[in-house]
């Protein structure tokens, strides 16, 4: 999330805040309904802290996902005051409102309360083959050395490797809102991440997955994905660079990708040798 430098401390002095949460119980009712809770607030409390308070003290049936509470696991994505955010990274007092409205992430099916079904996100991610593809599969399964990569080569995709698969970008994207077949900013950014990875040798399959009617061409640079990304991955930038790469590839450039060489592992003094292999590759 891009915030301006030096944001001033919140001016509102609040003791209690109302959490207006969209509740949905599939076993009780077909419609979702708002429920309000009064949450005592201290400076430094996050929305996740508030939800935990509600679950522990007020209503044990409130359901949400959370794990690391520090913005790295990507579990607690939800819509807070109209924007998709991570609950653990949103300070209650910085929202500067007496009523905080919380809803589950849109553009995914809603399982219960604040829990979205992120399977569409993962299915689309799988479609772009998010793993290194190399010709020498024997080397990948029984490695004898390491793939060499310079810091400059790493810098070309490091930004994209920070993706925590929280799913906020697909909630923000206007194309995903209407088109379920669109790959989405996360998958497209990861496709680009592997295309520019110097260790990867599989541009053909990835570009075939992305150069389709519902692939990267249905992105129109609305930029909402970049605005909500909590880790600064900037998927919008990645997708526009991906378009350039796909055009270049279709015009014939970049088809033969020279992969990173392998350097054999050098045994260093004092470090014991690895134990003998007990499981054969492919077992």
């Amino acid at each position: 999330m891009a915030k301006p430098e030096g944001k001033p401390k919140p001016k509102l002095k609040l003791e209690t805040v109302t959490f207006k949460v969209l509740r949905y119980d599939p076993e009780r009712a077909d419609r979702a309904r708002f429920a309000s809770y009064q949450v005592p607030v201290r400076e430094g409390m996050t929305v996740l802290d508030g939800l935990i308070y509600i679950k522990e003290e007020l209503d044990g049936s409130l359901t949400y996902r959370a794990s690391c509470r520090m913005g790295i696991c990507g579990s607690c994505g939800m819509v807070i005051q109209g924007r998709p955010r991570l609950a653990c990274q949103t300070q209650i007092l910085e929202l500067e409102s007496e009523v905080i409205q919380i809803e589950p992430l849109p553009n995914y099916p809603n399982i219960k309360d604040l829990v979205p079904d992120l399977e569409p996100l993962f299915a689309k991610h799988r479609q772009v083959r998010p793993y290194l593809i190399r010709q020498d599969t024997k080397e990948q399964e029984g490695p004898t050395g390491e793939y060499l990569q310079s810091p400059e080569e790493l810098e070309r995709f490091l930004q994209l490797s920070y993706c925590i698969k929280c799913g906020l970008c697909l909630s923000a994207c206007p194309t995903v809102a209407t088109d379920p077949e669109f790959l989405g900013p996360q998958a497209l950014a990861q496709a680009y991440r592997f295309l520019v990875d110097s260790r990867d040798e599989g541009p053909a399959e990835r570009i075939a997955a992305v150069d389709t009617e519902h692939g990267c061409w249905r992105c129109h640079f609305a930029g909402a994905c970049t605005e909500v990304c909590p880790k600064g991955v900037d998927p919008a930038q990645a997708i526009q660079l991906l378009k350039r790469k796909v055009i270049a590839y279709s015009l014939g450039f970049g088809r033969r990708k020279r992969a990173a060489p392998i350097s054999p592992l050098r045994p260093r003094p004092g470090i014991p040798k690895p134990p003998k292999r007990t499981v054969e590759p492919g077992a």
Partner: protein
Amino acid sequence: MMWIRESGWWLGFLIAGLVGFAFLAIHLGVFHLPGLLSGRPGSEVLSFPAAMERARSPSTAASYIVLLGALLYHGFYGLRGLLLELFPGRAARRAITWGAALIGMAVFAYGTYTTAVAARLAGG
């Protein structure tokens, strides 16, 4: 469609947009602006003889056709993208793509035909 990948159609969309932008500027500057600036009343500038005067030269006809082709391709490709997003699904995909292509080509044919007829009428 079959022989050109989606990236080809999209690149054409970009180029058609740029070409259309350039030719539209020329079209406005050459055909509509002099009429506005000349001080003559609208009824005279838009009259049949004046229109024929403008339609005479073959370069006029050629520029009309390029402009029309570029803008129609750009417009219908954009509309097709918009409709594909609103109505996903295999059958809809084919219907939308072919529908946009056919309507676009029909309008282009009509525009080219009237341009040719007008040029002939004007004596060019």
